[in-house]
Every structure is written in C-alpha cells, then in structure tokens.
C-alpha cells in the first residue's frame, strides 16, 4: 500500500500533505504506544469533507487496527467505560488496549455513517469491504445494507464475496432474519418495495453449501457448529411471510425451484407461499406451478383441485407470456399420467384447442403435437377427433370453470380442423394429422418449447429450394394488384 501511495504523492500538493501525514502517523502509532494519541488525528480524517481523504483514512484505519489485532493490542472482552479507565487498577498495557478498543468503536461508528453517505462515489470506492466486515459487527452492517430508502444492490454485490465465508454468511443470515422481523413489524406488514428489493438482492446471493461437513471456510477461526440450512430456511420463510409486490413474486418464483428449495431442510414449509401465489392468477400462478410441482412430486404434497385450478389458468395470454416454455413443459408433465380421468384430459384438450384459435404459430407448433400426444395417451379421448354421428352444436362450455362440467368429451375438435387452413405450412401440416388415426409414437415437443418467431423464420429462410415460383400477374404499380386491400384504405402521397 505504501509504495503506491508514494507514487501518487507527486500528483498534488494537498494530496501529498494528507497522505504523508497519515502515513507518518500510522508508522508512529504502530511503532510505539507512546504515540497512541495520534489515532485521533487519523479518525479526524474520516470525518473530512473530501472523499479521497475519507478513502485514504479508511484504508489507514484498516491497517492500524489489523496490526493491533494481530499483535493482541486490542482489548477483548467486556469493555469498561472510558471514564472508568483511570480509576480502575489496570496495568498500563491494559489501559492502552482499552483505549485502543474505544478508538476502534469510534472508528466503526464513523465508517457506518459513511455507508449512508450520499455521494455514491464514496460507497463504491470504499472498495475494501473487508474493513467494514472486520471492524464492525454484522448486525449493524446488515442493517445498513438493507436500507429502506436506497437501492443498495451495488454494495450488496460487493458484499457477495464475503458471503462465501461460512461464519460471515451464518451471522448475516441470522441478522437478516432479525432485521426483516423488526422492519416489517414496524411497518405493519405494508409493502416496502425498496427494502424488499434490497432484501431480495441480498438473499438471492446467499448460497448454502450442500454438505454441512464441508464448512471450513472461516473468516475468523471458530469452532462452533452452524446450522446453515435452518438459518437459511428461517430467513426465507420470514421474508416470504410478508406481502410482496407482484414483480417481487415473479423474481422469487423464477429462482425458487432452483436456488431456494434445494437448500431448504423442509421445502414443504413453502406451501403457504406457493398456494398463495398460485391463487393470485396470471403469470404468477404459472410460475408458482413449478414450485408446486416439486412439492407434489418429491415431497408428497396433496393439493386438492390442482387440475381444476390448472384448467382455470388456461387463457389466451398463456401463449404470449415470457414463461410459455416453462408452462408447457410443466403442463406436459402434469398431463403425462395415463391415470387421469378421460373427462379431465378431454377438457384440457378442448380448451387448448379453443385457445389455439388465437395463438401465434410458435405456440401452435407446440400446442398441436401436444394435443395429439394427449389423445394418444388417452385413447378414450379419441372421440374428440373421430365420432361418426350427425351434425350438432358444440356442446363444450368455454366459460365453465370446472373441467367436469364443461362437456368437452361430447365435443369435437373443429378448431383443429380450422387450423388446417392456417397460413403457416408447418402448422397446417400438424393440424392435418387429426384427419387420420394417430400413430402410436408420441411426438417430442421439447425442442419446440423455446422456439421464437424469428427462429421459425430462419428455418424457412435456410431451407433449400430448387425453384422459386413468381407471381403470375406482373405488377405495374405499388398499389395495384388483383387483390388490393391496402390501396383501398391508403393512397400514396
């Protein structure tokens, strides 16, 4: 550190002065206990107006206290009041240590103040979070990080590297828990987006190692055993207990099944949160499906009316949301059981078919094979595409919420018939399959799930063609073709 400081010396006179000043003072403090009082001057710099001075002083403090701590020159244990220092019968060395410990406390206070400093540059440039970590206790640090007023995501991301250390992480987790409890209690369970965002950012960076045995990475050598998983679980559960803004729901649900559930000792505790989210509707419900699925599948959860709710989730928007692929993947899994009742599958099939009338081609390319697969799995649903009888109205009731009541099994898939006239050749081909008895082999829809319109377009563009047919009538003007529609409504000018 010192040489680099020396090289900077040449830049400015004022810099030279304060850097030299601080450097000499550090040297004196560390050399001889006589000069201990110089620490006041260093601490003075922490209160300076200038950012650079603060940064430098922070660094200096770190160096001083690190050295003192290593030498054992800091008092450890119950700290007597500074006023009592003179009266007590302690050795000079002890007194000195206690004095230093007091200065240390002063320094920590000042540094925490600086975290809340308005100038953002100060925050960022206080690069060495180590200082804080080392100097302050986690509790107060967390309190500052989880500000209710400011977005601290940048600092939190810096803080992330220390979360690798097991002890730090443990203490952070427990202090976060306390913090949430306190803050949310104070705010009477209202939504505080900034605060919750901060909490989320911090929480999502915490990763508990998979095996408790491997906890060896300590900042400070300690012997105590941590119950990481438990702390982690409690922290999240507490966080999720309170009301969240909808964007936060989405964020959490997206990472829930990957980074939260596996690290919990008892994921079933999430059921409250998940079922609440599932009831919200829209995209949040779609996302909650994933967590629910894991609970049902792996943790033996019994969820009444699951399919009914799933059925009511189906509306035209499912084709346009960002999480379409995930949703169809899950629905495919949910409906893969051959033990489902025929009426239920038929209801799903019919509803999907009805919705397909508004779907874009990318969704249709998933949907049509999916419907065919469902009919293959449930041969009793074959009546949907093959029922020799007289013409009738469509008995299916789209508005009915209950799949048992919607008469889907008595209907027929005229919608697919309609899609045989779809403009996209692949869709039309896929729809044509219902004209004949379906083959035994199921179609794989997994590679279609992530297909975007542009990819579809590219497929078409890359296909090799031998001949390129041209329009039969040669055009003479822009808005003059045999089937002009544009020219009817707009004219050139």
């Amino acid at each position, binding site marked *: 550190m010192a040489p680099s400081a020396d090289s900077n010396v040449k830049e400015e006179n004022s810099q030279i002065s304060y850097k030299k000043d601080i450097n000499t003072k550090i040297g004196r403090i560390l050399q001889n206990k006589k000069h201990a009082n110089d620490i006041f001057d260093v601490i003075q710099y922490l209160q300076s107006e200038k950012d650079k001075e603060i940064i430098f002083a922070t660094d200096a403090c770190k160096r001083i206290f690190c050295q003192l701590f290593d030498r054992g020159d800091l008092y450890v244990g119950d700290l007597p009041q500074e006023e009592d220092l003179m009266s007590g019968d302690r050795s000079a060395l002890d007194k000195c240590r206690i004095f230093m410990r007091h200065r240390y406390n002063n320094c920590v206070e000042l540094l925490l103040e600086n975290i809340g400093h308005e100038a953002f540059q100060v925050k960022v440039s206080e690069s060495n979070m180590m200082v804080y970590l080392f100097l302050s206790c986690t509790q107060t640090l967390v309190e500052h990080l989880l500000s209710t007023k400011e977005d601290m995501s940048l600092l939190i991301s810096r803080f992330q590297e220390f979360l690798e250390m097991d002890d730090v992480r443990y203490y952070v987790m427990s202090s976060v828990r306390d913090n949430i409890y306190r803050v949310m209690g104070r705010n009477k369970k209202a939504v505080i987006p900034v605060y919750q965002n901060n909490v989320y950012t911090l929480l999502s960076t915490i990763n508990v190692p998979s095996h408790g045995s491997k906890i060896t990475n300590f900042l400070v050598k300690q012997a105590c055993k941590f119950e990481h998983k438990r702390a982690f679980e409690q922290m999240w559960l507490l966080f999720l207990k309170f009301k969240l803004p909808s964007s936060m729901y989405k964020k959490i649900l997206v990472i829930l099944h990957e980074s939260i559930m596996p690290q919990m000792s008892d994921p079933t505790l999430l059921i409250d949160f998940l079922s609440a989210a599932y009831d919200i509707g829209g995209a949040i419900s779609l996302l909650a499906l994933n967590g629910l699925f894991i609970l049902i599948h792996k943790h033996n959860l019994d969820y009444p009316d699951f399919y009914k709710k799933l059925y009511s989730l189906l509306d035209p928007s499912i084709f346009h949301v960002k999480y379409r692929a995930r949703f169809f993947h899950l629905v495919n899994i949910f409906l893969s059981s051959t033990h489902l009742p025929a009426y239920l599958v038929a209801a799903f099939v019919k509803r999907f078919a009805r919705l397909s009338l*508004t*779907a*874009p081609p990318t969704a249709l390319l998933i949907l049509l094979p999916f419907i065919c697969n469902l009919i293959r799995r449930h041969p009793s649903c074959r009546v949907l595409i093959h029922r020799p009888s007289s013409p009738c109205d469509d008995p299916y009731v789209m508005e009915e919420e209950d799949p048992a009541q919607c008469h889907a099994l008595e209907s027929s898939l005229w919608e697919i018939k309609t899609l045989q006239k779809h403009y996209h050749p692949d869709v*039309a081909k896929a729809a044509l399959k219902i004209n004949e008895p379906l083959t035994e082999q199921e179609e794989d829809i997994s590679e279609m799930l992530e297909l975007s319109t542009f990819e579809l*377009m590219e497929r078409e563009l890359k296909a090799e063609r031998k001949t390129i047919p041209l329009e039969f009538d040669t*055009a*003479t003007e822009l808005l003059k073709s045999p089937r002009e529609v544009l020219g009817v409504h707009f004219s050139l*000018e």
Partner: protein
Amino acid sequence: MRQGSTSQNRGLSDKVRKSKAAPEIQKNPFEVKINRKKFDVLGRKSKHDVGLPGVSRSRAIQKRKETLLKEFRAKDKNNKFIDRRFGEYDQKITPEEKILQRFTLERQRTQDRKDMYNLNEEEELTHYGQSLAEMEKMTDVIDSDSDSEEKGLLSAELTATHFGGGGGLLRKKSAGDEDEEHKPKSRQELIEELIIKSKQEKRERQTQKEEAQELTEKLDQEWKSIQNLLAHKTPKAERKDETDKPKVLKHLRPNTEAVSEQGGEKEDDDGDEEGGEKEDDDGDEEGGEKEDDDGDEEGGEKEDDDGDEEGGEKEDDDGDEEGGEKEDDDDAEGEEEDEEGGEDADDEDADDDHCDLQSDEGSEDEDAEGAEEEQVCAEGPPAVIEEQKKAAQEAAKAELPYTFTAPESYSDLKALLQDHGSDQQCLILDRTLKCHHPSLAAGNKAKLQKLFGFLLEYVGDLATQNPPDLRTVSALIPQICGLCQMFPEAACKAVQTLLSDSGHSMEETLEVKGRAPMPDLDMLVLLKITALLFPSSDFRHPVTTPAFLYISQALTRCVVLSLEDVCKGLILCCLALEFVSLSRRFFPELLNFLLGLLHLTVSDKLCVSEILLHLIKPNELLVFYNNKHAWPVISSLLHLLCLCFRLSLIDSCLDLVKRCTSLYKDLPSFAHIFQPIRTLLLQHLPVEGYPAPIQDLHSEILDAIPEQPSQHAPLVFKKKKPIPLKLFTPKIVQILDYGKKRGNTKEEKEHERLKHKYKREFKGALREIRKDTRFLARENVYFSSFSSSE
C-alpha cells in the same frame, strides 16, 4: 437404328426372294445355314435357327448401293442445274399438254398481280401490259400520223403507246372507257385519303375523350354536392403537416370516406378540402388514363408518321402532306404538353425506343393500303429532315445518355438515380437493364443480380427519407418486377436477407426491451413488394412464408403507443389480408390485432381487461372520444383533424373486420373466432356516436357473424382403404432381362441392362461401319479399274 434398318432389310429381302423365288432359296442347302442350338428350351421359339447368309449379304450390298454409293458418288459435287419449268422432268405429259399448262400458269401469274385494282371481270388482252383494244384504236392514229409524215413529233404518249411500258404506266390508261370509281386511285389521292382518315380518327378519339372528361366532371360535381351534405372527409395530407402527426400518416393518407356528424360546424372548410382533394384524385386518375391513351396514340401516331415519312418525304414536292403531318404532330404534342408538361423529352425517347418495332408494323399496313407506294419507296431518303429530327431529339434528351454503367455498389446506384424525376429514373433503369442484358456479355448476369438488391435498398431509402417518395417507388415497380422475373433466385435471396435482418433486429429489441416498435415504412413497402412479386397463396414459399411470419411477429409483439402505430398496424393488417385473400388461409394474429384495436375505441376498461390485452399494452384510450354522452368539444382545428383521423382509422378497422368475416365464413370455427369481436361490437362499441357509414359497417359486420355457432358434423377420420389380407398367391414380377443379374435395386438393374444394350449397339455399329468402308473400297477399285480399262 438397327431395328429400323432391319425393317427396311425385310422389305428388301422380300424383293430379293421374289426375284429369286423364295421357297427355292430356302430349300437350297447351299444357301441355308443352320444355327445349332445347345439345348432345347420348352416353349421358347427361336427366330434365328435358320439363317440365309447369302441372301442377307446380297441384301446388304443392295442397300449400300442404293444409299451409300449414291452419296459417295455425289460427294464433293454440290451444284447442279435443275430445270424448274413446269413438267420438265415429267415423262408422262405430252409436249402439247406441257405447253398449254405452262401458258395457263403464266397467265394466272400475271393476272393476279395486275388485276388487283381492275374490278371489272372482263378480261383484257394485253401486249406489253397495254390493252390490245386500245392499241388497235391507236394504230389508226399512228397510221394517219404516218400518212401525214410528221415524224419529228413524238409525244410522250405516242412513244409510250408505241414502245410499251411496264406496269408502272398503267395509270396512263385513258379515262374515258371506264367508270371513275372502278379506276384504281392515283397515289396522291390515296395518300390524301389516308391523311383524311387518320385525322378523322383522331378527331373522333378526341371528342370521345372530351365527352368522357365531361361526364367524369359532372359526376364529380354531383358527388361533391352529395358529399357536402353528408360529410367531411379525412384531413388532407398537406394539412397534416401543420399538425403533429407522424410522418407516415402524412404520406399514407387514409382514403376512406369516414363521415362524422359533428362535422357540421366545419362543413364549409371540409367541403373545400374535399373538393381539392377530389380534384387531385381525379387528376391522378385521369393522368393514369391518359397515360394509357398516350400509349395508344403514340402507337397510332407513330404508324402514321412512318407512313407519311416514308411516303411523303420521298416525294419532296408534296407540300400539303408535310403540312398535314405537321398538324398531326402538333395536335398530338399539344395534348401531351397539356397532360404531362415538360416530359416531352421522355416521351420522344419512348418513341424512339419503339421506333423499330413500329416501323415494321407501319410497313405492313402500307402493304395492305397501297401497293404502289412500295414501289416508289425504294428511292433514296431525303437526309435533311431526318437530321433535323435527330437534332431536335438529341437536344431534348441531352441530359440522359443511352448507356449506363451497371452500378457496382449501392452508392453508385444512388448517385445514378438520385437527382432525377421518377420517370427519368425508370428510364435510366430501363436503359441500364437493356445495356446489360445477360445475353450481351458474360458478367452482366451478376451485375443485374446485384442491381436487384441495390434497388430494394434504394426503395427502402426512398420510403424512409423525409418525406417518403412513394410515387417513385411505385414507378420503379415494373423495373423491379422485370428484374425479379429475370433472376428469381437473386430476387428471392435479396428479399429474404432484408426480411431476416429486420426480423432479427426486432427479435433483439424484443429480448432487450421486452417490446418492439412497429416496423418502419420501408419494411411495409418491402412487404407490399413481396406480395407483388411472389405468390402469397403458395402452401410454402421461400419468401412469402417468412414474410407471413414477419407480419405475425409484428402484429403480436409490437406495441401500439400512438396513432401512428395504429396506422402502421392497419397497414400490416391490410397486407396480411392481401396475403391470405386468395388462399383464404387463417391468420389468427390479424384478428387478434383487429380485436385489440377495437378495444382501444372503448372507454370502459372493465370489459377490456378480460381478453388479449397483452398484445396492446398501453390501454390508454387512443381512439375517438371517451365520453358517450357529451360531444367532444372541438377546441381547435387540430383537434378536429385528430378526431377525423381517428374516425377514418376506426372505419378502416371495421372494414377489415368485415373483409375477414367474408373471407373466413367457411371455417368450421367461424363463430368462435369472431365471438369476441361480436360481443365487443355489440355491447361496448360506442356506435351511437359514430357517423352513419360506420354505423352501417357496424351493423353489416354484426349481421355477418352469427349469434349461435352453426352446426357441424363431428370430426371423423378420413376413409381409408382397408388393408388387404395377406394372400398366398405368388407375387409375379416382370423379369426385364434374362441371363446375368447384376445390381440389387431396380435402378441398378435398369442401369446394367442399358449398359449391356449400349455395348451391343456399339459393336453392331462398328461392324456396320467396317462393312461400309469395305464396300466403298471395293467399289473404288471396281470403278478405277473400270475407268482405266475404258
């Protein structure tokens, strides 16, 4: 070849046999060669068990003598005299007959030509083309002349009558003995008649046109008067400049007759506006018509010109004709000037281009009209007038050279076209295309293929510049079309790249921002051009299928934030509808988008939230007024224009819905597809506030959509032929080739068989050639020995 020759051989052999008494030959053991068989195969008939080598050899030699030897003799002797007189080589006709036939033929020949204008059936006997009767009369005169012995006076007539003359002197026939009408007309008369005829035609055409114009004007006026009562129209393009309307709208002016009732206050203004606009439109339309007319006229005129020029110019002294021609020209050009102002130069260029073609036609006409002219026409042309004409033409088009270098890059093309009017740009392109036609030089194909890409880029530029120059784009369409027809692959590639680039950028913005803006005008124009160049009704097409997907992407993923976006969306809808109108294919995104747009017209948002609004996210009320009960206060002209514009958009939207209903009414799920639109129109659309035409449209749509979905037969599988039971009858396969069997698949076998056959044929041909040479050598020896002995 071989088979053919055998069939001929058989014919020959018959002869040989006949000449030598066939059974005799067959019985003669010296002639017969028996081909021994190794095995007797039951049921197989062999054709070649007995051969007659002597007979076949003699047959072959005979044939060679008839064909090869003759050719050989005639070798290097190209010319010979053939007497083509009738019956010269015909032995069967007696000489008397021959002479008689020849005479009649000759008579017929001369008769055909000369009696063309001789309508009386009487046959005239002539001598040297002069009627004998006349000559007889003349002889008297001559006699008397000779009597009086005035030998020095040789009048022209006299010499002519005496020394005859060709057909050219036919007109000298004296006038007295025949009626005027039947007499063939003189050349001058003919020409005059022609001129009169053409003038008359022109006059007729002009009067017709004038009448048509009057009629249209009258119609317009009537229409205006009606319109003034009804309505005011969508704001005019120029006025939109003042408003803060987006540029696209300025240039794609809605053409619909949207009408609103509250326009009463502003009726006058609007009336004027409309009048102006209407006139503009008329002007345009008439321009179009006239252009067509011009085409015709030019054709006609040109023909006249050619006729006149060739006829008239050759006879310098015909002053009248010159005058007439001048007049014609003046008339024509006067019209042109009226119509097209300063574009004469171009027209003349066009004339020039057509000149070659038309002169041919012209000459054909002349053939029909006056045979005499042809004869005179052969004389040398007067160069002076030609030169004058040329000079004038050159002066007119001094700025446009005839040849252009093909642009190597986009900037080249831009530099080439930029500073010219749209017509001139077309001309430049036309000439460039002609100069670099692929048949002219090797590299031209690549150049023109590149040119197509540049041209598309240029069109895109024209559409994106401010203000967009869509008229030029429209004018360039024939060139683009022509290039596309020449190089479908290159055109396909070029359009594909543009589509995929644009699609890619849209996808990227979607990924980054979550939503994308509506495509720009250049893309819309490109899509329109795509529809013009490539068939959108193909089940799968390398260009139109991606174009479909592009439109779909734009309609589903792009956000509608402003009226401009609504307008672009409507254009996309129009395009989509055009794309599917022939094949009647189903386009769900189109209906979704229209439904979304209609939602924007509704003020109560409760009903809106239920369906499909993720498509059009900002649910703000863009269209028309938001209060059903109170009329919107028209605070300013701008506001009014805005309202009118909205109304016209609503009108377009509803019209598109109507078109969709008629397009898709045969689909099984028709009712389900249109149910959301129906409920929206029926329950939520503030129809009462709209002007009458929109209300009509509204009710029409509601009529078209049935309340209850119609009945359909449940789906059944297609009837398939039952798969037949397995039978135990052997499968019979045709064996193509006996003997060795190589190859496994049918193709391989076929290939092997053909190879074998080829080999055999080749050997046979070689053998034949060898025999030929031997035969020729033998003949040579024989001939030379024969000649030397002589």
